[in-house]
């Protein structure tokens, strides 16, 4: 199926060896390709239509495939008058797809007919799990879209392509996504996209804050907070965003009305919003990491990180762990439940300048002042790649497809396949006039947002966005009503902050007693006191009770010792027996040995 899709746009381009073409944006001016590339070019429109179709339960993508198969089958049946199915059984499933949905090895349950009961139930559940995985793998058929990349011919290099080249090559609607906001009065700018990639909020260092629907360029609000602004972040929906101002943190709504002033969150430099937990994590210049539960409006936790000013922060989207970078080259991983960092990682010998984690929680890229960029496997905490750059990257960002963007001074560079493989050159580069201060890939779009001294620039990076979106998770075409429903649903499904940890599957584990707890229990068992019963006729005098207590406790102790001795004796005997058994066919001369007992 995917191959079929490819042949329409991507592969064709390859075959014709044309350059400077992004498969998704490419709009061949000639007439011949226009039909075949139609669904590639009108992406947003098509997405909408697909969305509608999804609701009606029919998938456009599956239509041609089924046609094809039917035709084939029809022919088969015509040829042989037997009723044999030419494709017997169920359609085959790709193994790698199945592996994606099989969640580890299952239990192997053996059942004896009579003792079935719960075991049988579990066995049927195992079967159902397998079935569910199979169906999920089959449903991948519906993910018809494929993110393509720029392909260069032999003598050219994708990194040499300028934004204008790309914008010229793509269709109008896509070309419109490349734009420049010239705001040189209030820069440098920080920026943030909503989770569905529809809205953008930018905040200039000198107090200018603006929220906009960046695709239609419709302004939601524009205010000046008359104060320095360090960072800005959307909250769970596009009606609210948090702004880290000079002194305190504020929350505004999409019309620019101030909703809250969070005085507890002062001197904040960087913020992260954890959408599933409704937590706003802030890192301040005073060295505090704080968590605000946005759904309750309460401060959840505040830790003194004891590393000085915290100006490097990011989150791991997979397990909601916050990563902080420090001046001594370490990266610390935090959860709101533990006062100490969950892990500490020495990544650079100089200060860490930026960190980024990819959406699967597999890779972490860090850059330091030592002009290195390092990629770690964050699950194993092991380094994978080390890159020597021309300058230390001030900003790093991962795209949904795993591209890495780095801001080297005034240059944005995007690297492809730089995590598992060694990248030798950038995929795309773009030079700006000024220092870059904000960098984020727009979700579900092939767009990279760049905040800098002179305002904001939106760059086209083909292949950056996830092509198949899940409308239940993030819907770029969300209506107001959907948004409201979504908000309620999200609140209902809020994950408790206690579940944040390095292993997000920790909730599914059985909590085992630690060694200390075991010891404590044992101690308690030992220290259990005997309480003598009251006796009459002067036999309950304090001396008598004490004596009695002592006697009983002594007896207890003896009992315990006796039991232990007995156990040891048994153990010893057993060992002996085993040994004897083993030696049964020992040397022939053993028979002359003196026998024990």
């Amino acid at each position, binding site marked *: 199926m995917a191959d079929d899709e490819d042949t329409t746009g991507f592969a064709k381009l390859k075959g014709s060896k044309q350059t400077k073409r992004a498969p998704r944006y490419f709009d061949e001016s000639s007439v011949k390709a226009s039909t075949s590339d139609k669904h590639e070019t009108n992406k947003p429109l098509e997405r909408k239509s697909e969305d509608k179709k999804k609701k009606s339960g029919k998938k456009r993508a599956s239509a041609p495939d089924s046609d094809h198969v039917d035709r084939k089958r029809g022919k088969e049946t015509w040829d042989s008058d037997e009723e044999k199915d030419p494709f017997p059984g169920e359609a085959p499933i790709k193994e790698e797809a199945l592996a994606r949905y099989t969640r*580890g090895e299952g239990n192997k349950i053996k059942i004896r007919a009579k003792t079935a009961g719960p075991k049988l139930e579990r066995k049927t559940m195992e079967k159902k799990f397998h079935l569910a995985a199979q169906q999920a793998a089959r449903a991948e058929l519906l993910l018809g879209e494929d993110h393509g990349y720029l392909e260069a011919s032999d003598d050219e290099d994708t990194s040499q392509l300028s934004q204008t080249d790309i914008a010229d090559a793509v269709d109008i609607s896509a070309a419109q996504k490349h734009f420049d906001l010239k705001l040189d009065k209030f820069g440098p700018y920080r920026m943030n996209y909503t989770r569905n990639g529809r809205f953008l909020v930018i905040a200039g260092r000198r107090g200018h804050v603006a929220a906009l629907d960046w695709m239609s360029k419709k302004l939601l609000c524009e205010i000046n907070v008359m104060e320095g602004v360090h960072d800005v972040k959307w909250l769970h929906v596009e009606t609210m965003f948090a702004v880290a101002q000079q002194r305190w943190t504020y929350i505004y709504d999409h019309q620019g009305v101030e909703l809250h002033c969070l005085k507890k969150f002062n001197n904040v430099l960087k913020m992260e919003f954890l959408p599933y937990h409704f937590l706003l994590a802030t890192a301040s210049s005073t060295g505090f990491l704080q968590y605000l539960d946005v759904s309750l409006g309460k401060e959840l936790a505040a830790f003194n990180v004891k590393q000085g000013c915290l100006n490097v922060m990011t989150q791991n989207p997979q397990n909601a762990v916050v990563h902080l970078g420090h001046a001594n080259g370490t990266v610390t991983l935090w959860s709101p439940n533990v006062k100490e960092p969950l892990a500490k990682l020495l990544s650079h010998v100089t200060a860490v300048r930026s960190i980024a984690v990819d959406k699967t929680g597999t890779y972490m890229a860090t850059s330091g002042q030592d002009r290195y960029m390092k990629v770690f496997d964050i699950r194993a905490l092991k380094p994978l790649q080390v890159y*020597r750059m021309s300058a230390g990257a001030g900003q790093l960002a991962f795209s949904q497809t795993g591209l890495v963007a780095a801001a080297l001074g005034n240059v944005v560079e995007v690297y492809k396949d730089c995590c598992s493989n060694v990248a030798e050159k950038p995929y795309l580069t773009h030079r700006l006039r000024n220092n870059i201060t904000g960098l984020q890939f727009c979700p579900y779009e092939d767009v990279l947002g760049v905040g800098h001294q002179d305002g904001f620039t939106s760059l086209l990076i083909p292949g950056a966005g996830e092509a198949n979106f899940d409308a239940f998770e993030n819907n770029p075409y969300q209506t107001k009503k959907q948004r409201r429903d979504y908000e309620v649903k999200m609140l209902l499904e809020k994950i408790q902050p206690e579940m944040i940890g390095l292993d997000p599957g920790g909730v599914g584990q*059985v909590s085992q007693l630690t060694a200390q707890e075991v010891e404590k229990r044992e101690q308690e068992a030992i220290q259990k006191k005997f309480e003598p019963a009251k006796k009459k006729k002067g036999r309950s005098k304090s001396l008598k009770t004490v004596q009695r207590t002592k006697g009983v406790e002594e007896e207890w102790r003896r009992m315990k010792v006796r039991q232990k001795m007995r156990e040891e004796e048994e153990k010893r005997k057993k060992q002996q027996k085993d040994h004897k058994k083993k030696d049964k066919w020992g040397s022939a001369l053993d028979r002359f040995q003196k026998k024990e007992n």
Partner: protein
Amino acid sequence: MTVLRLLNIHTFCDIVQRSAIMADDPVRTLLAVNADQADEDDSALVLSDDEAESDNEGQHRNLLDAISSLDKKSRIKGKVIQRSEPSLQVSPFDISSGDNGGSRVHLNELVGSLRNTNQFSKVKTQIRKMQGRQKVIDAPLVKPQAERIERSLAYKATKKEVSRWTPIVRQNRQAAQLVFPLQQEPVSLPTTDSMVKSFKPSTDLEREIFEVLHGSKFAERRDHELTEAEEEALRAMSLDEALSRRKELQKMRALQSYHAAKCAREKKIKSKKYHRVKKRSRLHAEKLAIEELHKTNPELALEEIRKAEKLHAEERASLRHKNTGKWARSKMVMAKFDDEARQAVQEQLEKSRELTNQIRALQQDSSSDDDQEEREEEESEEAVVMEMGVDDKNPWMRSALKINSKSDQKDDPPVEEKQQLRTDEEETEQVEEVTSGEKDTIEEQPQQKHIDEKEELEEVKVENASTKKRRRRNKKKKEGENEVEEKADWSDVLKDEKKTGKKRKRRRKKTEVDAKKSRPDGGVMGRTTDEAGEVQDFDDDETMLEEGLERRKTLEEVEAAAKIPADAETLSTQQPKVDQATNPSLQKQREIVKEVHINPEKFFTIQPSKLKSSAPTYLDVDDNIDMIDFDQQRENIEEAFANDDVVTEFVEEKRKAEEAGKPKDIDLFMPGWGNWGGVGVKVNRKKRTRFIKRAPPPKPRQDWGLHHVIINEDKDVHLKTHQVRQLPKGFGSISEFERSIRAPLGKDWNTPSAVAKLTEPKVVTRAGTIIEPISGEETFKKSKGKKMDLEGINEEREGGKKDRRNGGKRNSKKGGSE
């Protein structure tokens, strides 16, 4: 007396009646006389004793006479017959007494005279028959006993009745889902199959076509390859042909039987050696075949090699032949005394090695040159690295101490020399192993071996094993004679070096131990040396020669590194290298290096790769100049002060964390307790240590081996509130439980149909329908009709098991449920 007689009469009557019951009417008629008389007597007696006496006396006597006259024989013989019938007269000879229960009146005594008559033939036959089975009903049992029996019988019957339900109950219990009411009319649509089967041609055309398709000889048949006509043609062969064919077949059959017999004979051979030799030859033949294939059909050969690779991989993955099994362990115990056991253990190990080396062996066969071998070794290394999916520059992914082959080729001494050194090392190893084999007890061996294997896994260090093999097997030696000869030359030269090598090793160990003792932070680094020490021991020379020098800076620096460990920062490794081959200070350096405990290389091991990134340019924007300048300045300063002592700090921090995580000993010693106390009193150390409660050994840390990482070992207290505390009932182990809840059930992760399936309820009731209790009549209606016995039910149960999903429907037909 009368009472006695009365009793006698009664017993008599009783007997007669009983026998009458058994013999039916005729006897009764015969005996009626007597019985009546007795009854009369009875009644008379009951009425009045004395009056009746005189009346009956005469009659009675007559009767007695009559009866006595019947039996003439006895009278003739003069035997005294004891009689049980009542008589009022007590004879003085005690002929007849009332209570002589010992002898009974027999039937033939009563009716024996019938024999002589010709009459009553019917009665006679009946009597004869009756006499044949003279069984008398037992006396009725006592009530409780009878009831007990009754109960048990009733229980049996009920059990049988109830047990009919068990399969149905079980089926319903085990059914994935029950839909009530269970009686639902099954809806079935006609299938195409059934339509085809029931099709009958109606029109003329249809009929014609049908005939052509079904009746003709030339029509294709379902289960046959050939049509009827074709088969006939085949059948019509000539006689000669048929004969020759028969002969051929006979010959073939004979050959087959010979071969079978041969195989059977060979199979019975129990000699292990025979089988070993046979297997070896087979393997050899296979290998040759693969080689042959390699020449002729490379694709097939590749497949074969792949197979071998798979075997190899499986071997590597499994613990088979690793002497971890029960058998091996038992052998290990025995090995002390038993040479054979030892040999067996060693054989196992060898086998595993052989298997793990198979690929290389295959490759080796194809090439004979030593250089080739070298190259291939590197290739295999690279392959391993590639397997792991990383660049070979990444030492985390490849083996810890392995060479960077590319750079080696460039920078290192020529191949021969390198090889020389390597062989040297190999041999030292061998020697050491031999000596250790002598010194060490065998119990230690498995451990060592285990380590060996580990290293093999990690480093794909093949040559070591292969040399061992060479040493052990003469055959192999012969094969690779050339190599050996070449090596012999070197070994002569290097004999001295060997010795020094041994010494060196011992010395190194010593220094290590010393260092451990002397270092205050031995706790931290101690472990690394403990556990990594083995690895180091094993490979040190190699690393020093091949890798270490490349990485290491000048001698002075290394020395400095030894003193201030963290000083050696390696990110800036592009430094002039020492020409190792010629460097006279090589040995010295090695020794020094061995004392380095904090190896900063462990922190930043990956060779940085350069990205062709474009340098930022700073345009002259007046506003920001100061800011940029500041940034730049700071950066410069930072860069200048890079390598400060970040690493040391980190190491120190990690050490502290480890220290804090360790369980501590508890000192319960009280001075003066049980001893003299006070100033100047020496405390016995033994006594003191007796009061120290030793802490259990610390658990291995999660961040062990990750020198650049500190992982917080404290448990998350908050998470505990959400976790399951006790293993739920019915689960064997924690992992079993955890696996059982591994898959999500919600619709966010599953397709709708899967969700429906995953969350389907056990019982579904249709709204608005009456659910009747299950009735036996309905349930067993069919089975009765078919006269099914218990087996039939059993069969049904089997069927139910096979198709549980249809259980409901099946039941519904019969109307069964719990």
